[in-house]
């Protein structure tokens, strides 16, 4: 199963540990650099779950603010990315700023195509639109589990801890999400799935 590649600068390394150590001592500039490195990833997690830019913006900001305030308890040397993404995912699931903000999707024209992925040739614009709508129709809880697994590549145990649910619930929500998406994408998945089956 392929996953979106992690930006190289978002990885954990001595530089990151150094920055976080400085941040822990109150160095805001160091933390700002950490924010710069992870902002896209954190925002991406939030946006995929809440499906509205304004809310995702709030969630992403709040995730970093909470991470900053909890740095004393963060073990330096461990990757910061998964940690702050877990915070963001948890906030995103529990976060409802306003009914309108929740219902508003991303404005048209502001979701330019990015990584086409291995299915890019197969999934044309129509298929992506269908998939996007199907993802939007999932419950927020299902979306959170699905995003943390497929985008953040977290294990069931990690997702369970992040969202405060049992691994069994993670498994069933993930399955239901995939099943619904597969049903929606059925007309487009035939060739891709066959190719996948053949390559595995």
């Amino acid at each position, binding site marked *: 199963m392929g996953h979106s590649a992690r930006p190289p600068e978002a990885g954990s390394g001595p530089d990151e540990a150094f920055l976080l150590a400085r941040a822990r001592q109150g160095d805001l500039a160091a933390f700002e650099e950490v924010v710069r490195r992870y902002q896209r990833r954190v925002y991406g997690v939030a*946006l995929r779950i809440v499906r509205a830019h304004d809310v995702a913006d709030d969630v992403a900001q709040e995730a970093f603010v909470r991470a900053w305030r909890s740095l*004393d308890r963060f073990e330096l040397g461990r990757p910061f990315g998964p940690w702050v993404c877990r*915070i963001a995912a948890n906030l995103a699931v529990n976060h*409802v700023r306003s009914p309108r903000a929740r219902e508003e999707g991303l404005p048209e024209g502001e979701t330019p195509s990015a990584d086409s992925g291995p299915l890019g040739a197969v999934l044309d614009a129509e298929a992506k639109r269908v998939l996007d709508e199907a993802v939007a129709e999932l419950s927020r809880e299902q979306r959170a589990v699905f995003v943390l697994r497929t985008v953040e590549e977290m294990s069931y145990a990690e997702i369970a801890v992040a969202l405060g649910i049992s691994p069994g619930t993670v498994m069933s929500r993930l*399955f239901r999400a995939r099943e619904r998406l*597969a049903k929606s994408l059925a007309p487009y998945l035939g060739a891709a799935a066959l190719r996948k089956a053949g390559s595995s």
Partner: protein
Amino acid sequence: MSAHERERLSAYLDRELPPGERAVVEAHLAACPECAAFLAELAAVDEAAASLPAEAPEGYFETFPARVRARLQVPKSAFPARRVPAWTWAAAAALLLAVVAPLTLRQLRTAPGMAPSAVPPALSPAPVPAAVEPEVAEKPRRPQSPPTAHPARAVSSEKRGPVLAAAPAAAPATVSPGAEAPLAKDEVMAEGIFAREPAAPPTAGGVAREAARDRLRPAAAPATAESTSPALSAATAGAALEAPPAPEHEDAFRRLESVHPRSAAEWRRLRNEWNAFAATETDSVRADEARVRAIAAAREAWRTGGEEDDESAFRRAVAAYLQREDARQKPRVERLLAETRRTP
């Protein structure tokens, strides 16, 4: 193929099945084309979903770090002190009652001449405020540890995992009222108790708590609806010269953030308050954010009420902002303007 079997395939895809179960599934897959095809579909869905873009509006990430920093750029004393949850007071009161009352009664029985107030010093109410004072006075920027053990909270934190457990009880109000962690409820409860305190008979603990609250009160009142008046703004600005301005400004900023107007008039009021805030804010990043929020509020006033005056005010505000040399978020404001073209 049952739902349970399909669910196992999903877990198999994630390599989350125990070895024995995994071997069974693999054996089944080798003999069942239907399940093999379903597994391939699930994998394809993952791949396709992961490839869906999650892009922010243009220019968003250019200002994001600075906006996060603006929220963190508050002196130590500006963060609200970790309030003691309501149950602490109740528990302390119950403990005092349980310990002091029998001892007092026993002393009354054994030494009839002794006054009831002559409670042994170690049992006097003083320890209660003493336990509170360091937290109030210190106002840690980043709390070193979670609140002391409380059965309900411990369970709650455990249930929610390290994320919320890591989220400090003293975390300032979030951007969104709806996202308040359970801990925030405790804070509200504590506020409620503080609010009721004056009605209670004064005690040593009460006096100490009152003093602690006095220290918490900002020198100048946070901006309110009336703060749009020049006189009050001037007064606030004057106070800012005498004392560090950040605490009350941070409070005011968060208060304005939490306002969710429902009518055009309320949006106008919010717009004015953001403008008043920006006029007195010394931190350039936060002032800039306030200006943008004022513009957003102006737009909402127009969208909500449909008044031409509001539209003019919004467009004037946009134009004025875009002409500022110190404007940090021009793409964001341009986007606000562009959105109004799509949704008149």
